[in-house]
């Protein structure tokens, strides 16, 4: 027999309680990790390589307000601007989807847009075919796979924001961005369908260098100050964080739930460990009598408590990591979650909580053992 074996035997003496305790830690930490992943997914914008160079220009009044198409030459002339494209969110409902389409559709300039989306990889002949056909579109790989779309297939959309329905021919498939789901089509096609209103949703601008990006936002804002369509230019990161700020209450809510989960878990584990040690007080007194020191008994209790919490963390947090790494959450959540990735930081958080849990739940029993003399312990009833 080894000391580790002795600790394991003690931990497993009441198997049902052991399984239930480990399960409670595992389920709680699984839930905690899931909440953390969801929170990250909802509040942490996806950044790709090109995002540091991109600037988004929108109407200063609101994102929903369009911008005049005539602003294009003015933006193009601003020093440091490498490329500009209109970027209008169409927001159509794809044929077959009843309430919600999991991918966005944007009207852009087919020649310049892929200059801006530098991370997107698409075959040059497909890009060429797209530019040549005004009713064609480039589709993200994930959307193409999800709907089984091939080049030449047609996609029909019902307008939800704009009063027009559109039909595109798939000219190409792109991939390599953080979100390979979008569909890009010609701004001109949207304009024609709407009766050429002379507006765009937003402008997407590519800066010639990262250093220039901040300067360009100021220049663009100033260029349209005191005009009938004042703009708000900001880096892509700032634009995304604007969306994130809308989730503030969700963050507090998820944070609150996470704290409650951890606290409930603490109570359960402390109670379990106290119970497990209390019913062994007599045995611990016998161990003391035969020569085990107080610190040996502390080590036994701590090891048992740590073991229980760590096993729970392995099953809960490790299980979450395995599960979310093996399922397509994007498909399961109908596109709401893209990555649903358990990060090393989240695993570290879960295991840290388990460690603290192990320590705290051992504290009360250790105090009891420290306070009880051998003689008192031997008088304890079984």
């Amino acid at each position, binding site marked *: 027999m080894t000391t580790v074996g002795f600790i394991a035997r003690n931990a497993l003496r009441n198997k049902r309680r052991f399984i239930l305790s480990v399960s409670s830690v595992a389920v709680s930490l699984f839930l905690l990790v899931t909440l953390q992943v969801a929170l990250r997914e909802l509040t942490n914008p996806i950044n790709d390589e090109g995002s540091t160079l991109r600037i988004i220009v929108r109407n200063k009044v609101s994102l929903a307000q369009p911008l005049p198409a005539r602003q294009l030459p003015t933006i193009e002339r601003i020093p440091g601007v490498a490329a500009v494209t209109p970027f209008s969110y169409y927001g159509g409902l794809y044929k077959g989807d009843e309430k919600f389409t999991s991918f966005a559709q944007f009207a852009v300039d087919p020649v310049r847009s892929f200059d801006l989306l530098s991370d997107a990889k698409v075959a040059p002949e497909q890009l060429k075919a797209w530019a040549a056909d005004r009713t064609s579109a480039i589709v993200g790989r994930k959307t193409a796979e999800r709907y089984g779309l091939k080049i030449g297939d047609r996609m029909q959309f019902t307008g939800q924001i704009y009063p027009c329905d559109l039909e595109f021919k798939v000219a190409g498939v792109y991939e390599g961005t953080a979100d390979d789901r979008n569909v890009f089509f010609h701004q001109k096609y949207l304009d024609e369908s709407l009766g050429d209103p002379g507006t765009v949703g937003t402008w997407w601008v590519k800066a010639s260098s990262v250093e220039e990006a901040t300067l360009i936002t100021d220049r663009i804002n100033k260029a349209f100050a005191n005009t009938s369509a004042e703009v708000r230019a900001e880096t892509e990161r700032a634009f995304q964080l604007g969306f994130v700020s809308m989730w503030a209450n969700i963050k507090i809510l998820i944070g609150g739930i996470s704290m409650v989960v951890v606290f409930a878990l603490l109570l359960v584990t402390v109670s379990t460990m106290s119970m497990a040690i209390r019913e062994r007080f007599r045995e611990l007194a016998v161990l003391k009598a035969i*020569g085990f020191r107080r610190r040996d008994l502390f080590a036994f209790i701590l090891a048992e408590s740590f073991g229980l919490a760590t096993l729970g963390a392995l099953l809960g947090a490790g299980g979450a990591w395995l599960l979310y790494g093996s399922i397509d959450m994007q498909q399961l959540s109908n596109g709401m979650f893209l990555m649903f990735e358990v990060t090393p930081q989240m695993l570290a958080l879960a295991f840290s909580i388990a460690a603290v849990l192990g320590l705290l739940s051992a504290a009360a029993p250790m105090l009891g053992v420290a306070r009880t003399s051998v003689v008192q312990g031997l008088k304890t009833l079984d």
Partner: protein
Amino acid sequence: MSAPHIVTIRELSKVYRQGEINVVALNNISLDIAQGEFLTLMGPSGSGKSTLLHIIAGIDRPTKGVCRVQDIDLTKLDESGLADWRNQNVGFVFQTFNLIPVLTAFENIELPLLLTRLSAKRRREQVNTALELVGLAERQKHLPRQLSGGQEQRVAIARALVTDPKLIVADEPTGNLDSNSAQEVLGILQMLSRQIGKTVIMVTHDPKAAAFGSRSIHLEKGELTN
């Protein structure tokens, strides 16, 4: 020539505080116990015999006086020092056996040896020797719940013996046993004293059990009466 003393007690007192009242458990006891002796402590409940046994075994401390065991003044040892001393010098046998229910007979006996630096092989040898001494070699893989009361107490005696201590203390070791099992257990304790030279100190109420000892002393209200 008489055997050297293994235990020397001088003017030993133990006073418990219960709320506002002081309860005198032992009052000015002086006692010598010779090496190899089988001493029985008798007396009515509350007479202080268990307290005296606990102090000799180093699991309780006197309020005043001296308790020397093998020339070591136990009152001078700290908590850790006492724990080490107990592991090397004392074997315990309790009325309720106090075996660890999740360990086999073999593992229960091996438990005190986990605190030593003996190799696994050496530990195994010592446990087997102790098991043979109490006649339970064939029951080594049994859990306590699979043993009779007498067998459990024999395992407890083997556990007390396994570190080869000079002193074995037994607190009412036959209190939970039928007469046959009690005879067996007392026979083993007597054999340990007579044949192996262990000093055995046993607390008992039972005069028949006390008859197995080489000397019997009586306590009453915390004082020696003979």
